[in-house]
């Protein structure tokens, strides 16, 4: 990375920190610090909602997901537009009917203090668990790019973001998010442009690129017919023993899991997770909040498809150029160790042959007229070559990764999150490289700052001012809020330092969220629709929802998007039954 890239990168960092810190003027009371004085324009809140969700994981992890698995991941967002509409109809008017600073405050008014505290605690746990990964993912990328130690990158990201969030509050979060989202989009467009400039002369048209990527099964963006139609889930023991047929619930991505499982995930994430729901409290009125939500409803699925397509084009790029056998710096370092060097060298030779065969088969298929499906022999050869390359890569990752399964056997240590970084480091020209790295940094900060302010808000409003210091002054609560922002920033940074996640981090974040989100959604659904439910029903309902997810997770093999439905049903079932037995006292 050259001097000019460093300059671009540091200029962006300095601007973001300055922009965040200068918002401190409006953060001189709790409403200013946690709700932006209710004066944030809808479009800024909308961009902030998108930026919060579009973390560095979106840039790094989703492109990697596209490279490795194609477009299938886009299906998990199909429920999002419908979720936004339902939130606009039911939750936004409810939230804006009172001047609350966290959505959980409403639960006390509707149920009682136990339900509010439990819901807020669930939010704190779920977000705290995920935040370490949100800092870790870009730190790994940036450490590889900048030649820094991962711990140093974690500390830089954690300290800078915590600093301006602590000083400027939610206004700093939202206005820096607006700029960060613009840089993220610019960065993604630049990478897309670079890939097109390289690939177009080789394939002659965009359609030809899609034909070849599609022939490698990379463009399955919507799967209507599930691979398995059995509705009875298998137990983990059955799966381990290879007994029985896989069930419908075991398929991670198809249109049904995306629309229905995704609907509940997004209802809960945007409606009940304070890091997003807080945005709905910052605009002037309910109508402005609705507009900010609907912005994502229009933009998210196309944007996610676009990011995955960048990953697919990256796969095409590596299929037509020299491709590294290993993308992860840890893997590359391990491969150089004397104990493994011999085996890796043999795999390198095998990989070079498989890669060349894939290139030849791809050229042959691309040279033929018409749809690749009409050339069965060439297609079969090409697909076999694609599989062979992936097979060697998997063996190499398993050899050097050091990851083991529950039985202690070596398992694939995926490098999904390292592909994008390797590409930009090797291929991006000066200035653009600095900009893309700034975009990764922007994406990281835009998610972390929102979560930090939301964690601080829930801690102060739902616990400190509610239980610890009920009579404290606004000034004291604000001072405590800033301290708590610093506290959560330190916890998140510390967690990230010891995070050791592999595989796809974007999936992992969604999985962690899915353990909790169904229950959070369930309590708000009860608040709106189960009139008889009181505080006991609310609290037991939350316990029921969380328990249902734990039981399902421990016993049967069900993909994570469905946990949201399980949690919701658990809350409604237990809470509903409790409400029948012990109805709310009026």
């Amino acid at each position, binding site marked *: 990375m050259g001097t000019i890239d460093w300059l671009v990168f540091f200029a962006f960092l300095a601007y973001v920190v300055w922009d965040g810190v200068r918002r401190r003027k409006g953060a001189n009371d709790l409403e200013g610090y946690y709700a932006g004085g209710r*004066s944030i324009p809808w479009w800024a809140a909308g961009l902030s909602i998108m930026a919060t969700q579009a973390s560095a994981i979106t840039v790094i992890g989703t492109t990697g997901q596209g490279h490795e698995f*194609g*477009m299938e991941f*886009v299906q998990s967002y*199909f429920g999002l*537009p*419908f979720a*936004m*509409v339902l939130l*606009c*109809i039911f939750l936004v008017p409810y939230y804006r009917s009172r001047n609350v600073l966290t959505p959980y405050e409403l639960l006390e008014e509707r149920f009682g203090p136990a339900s509010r505290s439990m819901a807020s605690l669930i939010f704190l746990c779920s977000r705290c668990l995920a935040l370490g990964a949100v800092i870790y993912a870009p730190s790994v990328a940036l450490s590889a790019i900048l030649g820094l130690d991962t711990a140093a990158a974690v500390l830089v990201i954690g300290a800078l973001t915590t600093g301006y969030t602590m000083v400027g509050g939610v206004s700093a979060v939202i206005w820096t998010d607006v700029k960060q989202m613009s840089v993220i989009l610019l960065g993604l467009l630049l990478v897309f442009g670079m890939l097109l400039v390289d690939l177009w002369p080789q394939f002659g048209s965009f359609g030809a690129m*899609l*034909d070849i*990527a*599609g*022939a*490698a*099964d*990379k*463009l*399955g*963006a*919507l*799967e*209507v017919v599930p691979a398995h139609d059995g509705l009875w889930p298998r137990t983990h023991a059955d799966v381990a023993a290879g007994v029985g047929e896989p069930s419908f619930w075991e398929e991670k991505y198809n*249109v049904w899991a995306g629309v229905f499982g995704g609907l509940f995930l997004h209802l809960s994430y945007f409606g009940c997770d304070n890091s997003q729901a807080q945005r709905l409290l910052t605009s*002037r*009125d309910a*109508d*402005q909040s*609705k*507009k900010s939500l*609907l912005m994502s*409803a*229009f933009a998210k*699925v*196309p944007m996610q*498809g676009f990011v995955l397509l960048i990953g697919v084009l990256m796969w095409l790029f590596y299929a037509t150029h020299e491709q590294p056998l290993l993308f992860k710096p840890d893997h590359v370092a391990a491969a150089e160790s004397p104990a493994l060097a011999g085996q890796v060298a043999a795999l390198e030779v095998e990989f070079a042959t498989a890669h060349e065969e894939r290139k030849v088969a791809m050229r042959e298929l691309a040279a033929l007229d018409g749809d*690749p*499906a009409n050339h069965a022999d060439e*297609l*079969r050869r090409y*697909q076999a070559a*694609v*599989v062979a390359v992936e097979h060697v890569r998997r063996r190499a990752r398993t050899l050097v990764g050091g990851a083991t399964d529950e039985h202690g056997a070596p398992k694939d240590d995926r490098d999904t999150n390292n592909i994008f970084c390797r590409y930009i480091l090797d291929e991006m020209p000066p200035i653009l490289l600095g900009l893309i790295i700034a975009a990764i940094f922007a994406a990281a900060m835009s998610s972390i700052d929102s979560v930090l302010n939301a964690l601080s808000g829930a801690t102060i409003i739902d616990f400190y001012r509610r239980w610890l210091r009920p009579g404290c002054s606004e000034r004291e609560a604000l001072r405590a809020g800033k301290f708590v922002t610093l506290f959560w920033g330190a916890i998140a940074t510390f967690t990230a330092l010891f995070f050791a996640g592999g595989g796809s981090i974007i999936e992992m974040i969604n999985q962690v969220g899915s353990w909790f989100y169904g229950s959070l959604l369930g309590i708000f659904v009860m608040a709106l629709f189960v009139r008889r439910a009181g505080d006991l029903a609310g609290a037991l309902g939350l316990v029921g929802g969380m328990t249902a997810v734990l039981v399902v997770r421990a016993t049967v093999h069900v993909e994570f998007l469905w946990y949201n439905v399980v949690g919701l049903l658990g809350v409604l079932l237990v809470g509903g039954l409790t409400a029948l037995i012990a109805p709310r006292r009026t």
Partner: protein
Amino acid sequence: MADRPDGEPATTATRPPLGSWALLYLVVCVLALVVMLLLYWFTQRFNLPMAS
């Protein structure tokens, strides 16, 4: 109706896009379905599952 302190007339702030919220919600849902249909076409047109 009085203007708000920021100078923007209150009527424009409360007027839903496209004239009514119900219509806007319908447009969002229809567009979501159209995007799914486009992706379905895209998959059918370009994607070839791996031969098992």
